[in-house]
């Protein structure tokens, strides 16, 4: 057996995303001579939370195997933000009601997505995209494009910090540990991985493929609902466009984090690395003060670079 140093030192593909995040942060604070280093990390953690939640949703769907992707997440998040804020109606006593309503809206979208895929036999990439148009239209007629404010207690909760660490980031970290356990230690999680590796083999082994797929699209929808209601709290208002950036972000953090695009292989810690990397990259470019064009260009190139680097260890298998 040939010795490969990468296999030892960087044996886990998600190391690369953390390394990338660290390097762009370093570049940013070198530029400011160390000024604002802690503030940047606080801001990055606060913003990364939402990409991580959307990323978990996308990770489960993508892990189901080739062709599975949830493109309705942005519309789902936008609608959920409006549902949550309308239900809370600015009153602290209705926070739970609004949160559960947003969750329910996400679950319904998940079921709807699955029905399109299963009943009508439409490929997920098309069914979730067309579902997102329907959701968007529902959102426009429901929310009328208004930015409804969250109740003060809820707004406070979503941006609370403990020693520079956002409260939401701690909660989401615990949540992702739970997700890791579900993925690797439960029948459901293992079924998702098995289906992604070989659907037919999983079916022959007795995995109820369709039930797991339904569960996964519903999980993705529910997480979109949670993400939407948290975003509306953190950004002090619902907006149908609030989820737009999570189309690319949810897929990018999954891929950068070392989850296989062809399914069957998921990586939970990598989601955090990927999300922090993307936010810190934005921080770095904003700190440099580059123009919008350069920013898009560099973001694209760097994502390609990291994916190539993260793909390295996998190819030596």
């Amino acid at each position, binding site marked *: 057996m040939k010795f490969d140093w990468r296999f030892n030192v960087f044996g886990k593909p998600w190391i690369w995303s953390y390394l990338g995040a660290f390097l762009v942060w370093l570049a*940013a604070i070198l*530029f*400011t001579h160390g*000024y*604002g*280093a*802690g*503030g*940047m990390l*606080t*801001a*990055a953690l*606060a*913003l990364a939370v939402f990409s991580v939640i959307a990323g978990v949703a996308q990770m489960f769907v993508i892990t189901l195997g080739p062709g599975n992707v949830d493109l309705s997440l942005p519309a789902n998040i936008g609608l959920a933000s409006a549902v949550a804020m309308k239900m809370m109606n600015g009153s602290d006593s209705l926070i739970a009601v609004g949160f559960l309503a947003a969750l329910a809206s996400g679950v319904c979208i998940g079921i709807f997505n699955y029905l399109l895929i299963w009943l009508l036999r439409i490929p997920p990439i098309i069914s979730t995209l067309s579902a997102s*148009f329907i959701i*968007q*239209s529902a*959102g*426009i007629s429901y929310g*009328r*494009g*208004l*930015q*409804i*404010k969250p109740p003060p207690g809820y707004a406070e909760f979503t*941006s609370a910090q403990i020693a520079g660490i956002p409260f939401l980031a701690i909660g989401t970290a615990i949540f992702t540990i739970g997700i890791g356990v579900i993925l690797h230690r439960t029948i459901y999680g293992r079924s998702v991985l098995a289906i992604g590796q070989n659907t037919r083999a999983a079916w022959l082994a007795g995995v109820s493929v369709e039930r797991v797929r339904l569960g996964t699209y519903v999980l993705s929808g529910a997480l979109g609902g949670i993400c939407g209601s948290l*975003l509306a709290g953190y*950004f*002090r*208002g619902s*907006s*149908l*466009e*609030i989820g737009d*950036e999570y189309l690319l972000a949810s897929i990018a953090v999954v891929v950068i984090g070392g989850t296989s695009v062809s399914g069957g292989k998921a990586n939970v810690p990598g989601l955090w690395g990927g999300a922090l990397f993307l*936010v810190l990259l*934005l*921080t770095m470019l*904003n*700190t440099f*003060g580059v*123009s*919008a*064009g350069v*920013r898009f260009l560099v973001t694209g190139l760097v994502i390609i670079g990291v994916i190539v680097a993260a793909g390295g260890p996998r190819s030596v298998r």
Partner: protein
Amino acid sequence: MKRITYSRALLPLLASIALIGVAQADTKNMRIAFSNNYAGNSWRQAMLKSYDIVTKKAVTDGVVAAADVFTTADKEVPTQAAQIQNLILQGYNAIVINASSPDALNGAIKQATDAGIVVVSFDGIVTEPSAWRVVVDFKDYGEQEVVHLAGWLPKGGNLLEIRGLAGTSIDDAIHAGIQQGVSKHPEFKIVNSVEGDWDQTTAQKAVATVLPSLPEIVGVVDQGGDGYGAAQAFAGAGRKEPIIIMGNRQDELAWWKEQKAKNGYTTWSASIAPGVSTLAFWVAQQILDGRKDIPHDLLVPYLAFTQDDFEAALPSIPVGGVASHEYTQEDAKKAIEANMKK
């Protein structure tokens, strides 16, 4: 080629002869369509609402026969181009348009104007010369932001700029105005500029990422829709909010009112009024009415609020919405006159 230009030159002539025939040209049998490419934010919703109020009344009063609104769900150019072609076939006399692109729709617009349809664009304007454009003086808006700051901060200081959607004519014009303002007031220095896309969430995120690296900021110059997000980002980073120019959104003005009551916070607010859609409607109606003297580029003022009058306007803005101003036919005639004097 020659024949086409000849017949095109003849058409208005024939039209005006016909108009003289009926003494006052009449638009009561004419139908005006509104082609809109997006409805998903508060500004667009206010735009549609203002348009609805004014045109419903115009139809009831018998000024025009119909004023229908057609909104496409996405911001895509091909969808709107197809929509315009449908409107041509449906035989509308005029199309009021908020366009998804300044130049990509020109082909479809040209087809419409060649078919004798009056096209009036606003907000998202079209560059096709045969169409009309109702534009707001965005450059002056940008410059006035710095002028106001200079009045309150004679010593100057560091400014943070929040840009709008990259590549749009609006972003370029406001930015140019701000730059001109800063060059006239060299006591100010723009230390960084980020992209807020006129959106609260995007602005808050952009400011939050850049703020840790910035020195003390005395003012934020922006483009509207981003002021509240900027204020949240400053609060989130534990920094005192500088003077943030607002953009007529209800949440921005409500925040301003709260701060004013607390510590006498002073700023200025301005933006393009969504009701400019109704001005575009009246311009189309006036052209159909036979007016030949209306310039193709109409410059109209933006809607601004000061420390003294914003609180009076606040109750009339829907929660989560944006301040609007609807034009009457008389207002529109005055706006046209103002442009003809130039």
